[in-house]
């Protein structure tokens, strides 16, 4: 996607609930107001598990 784009806007565009994921850039987490550039590679990691541990 074309940057710059705030993380929470990206999640809205992907129709992903921000409460259900972590966003990881490299080896760090990024908050919802972090700005993503064209060249950034991020992981949108689901955190919801379906059963108990």
């Amino acid at each position, binding site marked *: 996607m074309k940057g710059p784009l705030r993380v929470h806007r990206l999640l809205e565009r992907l129709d992903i*609930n*921000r*409460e*259900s*994921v*972590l966003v*990881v850039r490299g080896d*760090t*987490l*990024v*908050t*919802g*107001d972090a700005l993503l550039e064209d060249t950034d590679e991020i992981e949108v*990691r*689901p*955190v*919801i*598990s*379906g*059963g*108990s*541990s």
Partner: protein
Amino acid sequence: MIELRRHNAAFCRDCFLHHSREQVRKAIDDFEMMGPGDRVLVAVSGGKDSLALWDILLDLGYAADGLYLGLGIGEYSADSAHHARAFATRREARLVEVDIPAEFGFDIPTGARAAKRAPCSACGLSKRHLFNQAALDGGYDVVATGHNLDDEAAVLFGNTLRWNVDYLSRQRPVLPAERGFVKKVKPLVRLGEREMAAYCVLTGIDYIVEECPMAAGNKHLGYKEALNAIEVDSPGAKAAFYFEFLDKAAHRFEAATMGEAEVELRSCSSCGAPTTGDVCAFCKLVARAATP
């Protein structure tokens, strides 16, 4: 690094890790979950919640061993076992392992089909039985599971939709020791799933991210999605739902079921575990799986 909207706060790495440990410490203290000298058996799946819980309990100074149950669910079980063992090695902690296919002759998918139960039902039944048995066999004072705030809110939501009064009367972060059952506690109840995943990412704990293939589309996931849809517009809704239930409503459901005759428990004729019948539900499952 991470914002927690229900706390109206954002945290750097060190402060977030401190926050996580303090929330566990507070849950342990508020609900009297365990004492400093207690031997704790942590139910470990290789997932983010149970590994984070084990890590935090060790950091808080508890004598905490892990228990991993092999469920026989193909690649998923192989991967989850790998993550559990890797963590135990990293922390030089003791991991007890029970392999259901090797020790009882069936895997969860086969057992579920033979007993005409949903896989999650056969899995939960097996886990509860085997966690308790391992704790008794090993002389542990308490079993700790990685149920987090999102898990408990989803269970509460499901029980409330159907007004399962019996379950509502028993949903607590602590189930006391009684009649052949070891005390069971949920020290992560003050922390959400995002927080547990973040804890693992920030501490470098490698956990299994893939979901159990048997869980796809289950009701529990649906309840979590529904609650998260509320939470995104009303941060703190899940915590309020669960903790206000404990504070204001749980005792009313307990009182409503108090007049009922106490269920008589006896020892399973096969394994000795507490049961209302002649044979416990787990031994029935084993027997049915053996004769498809």
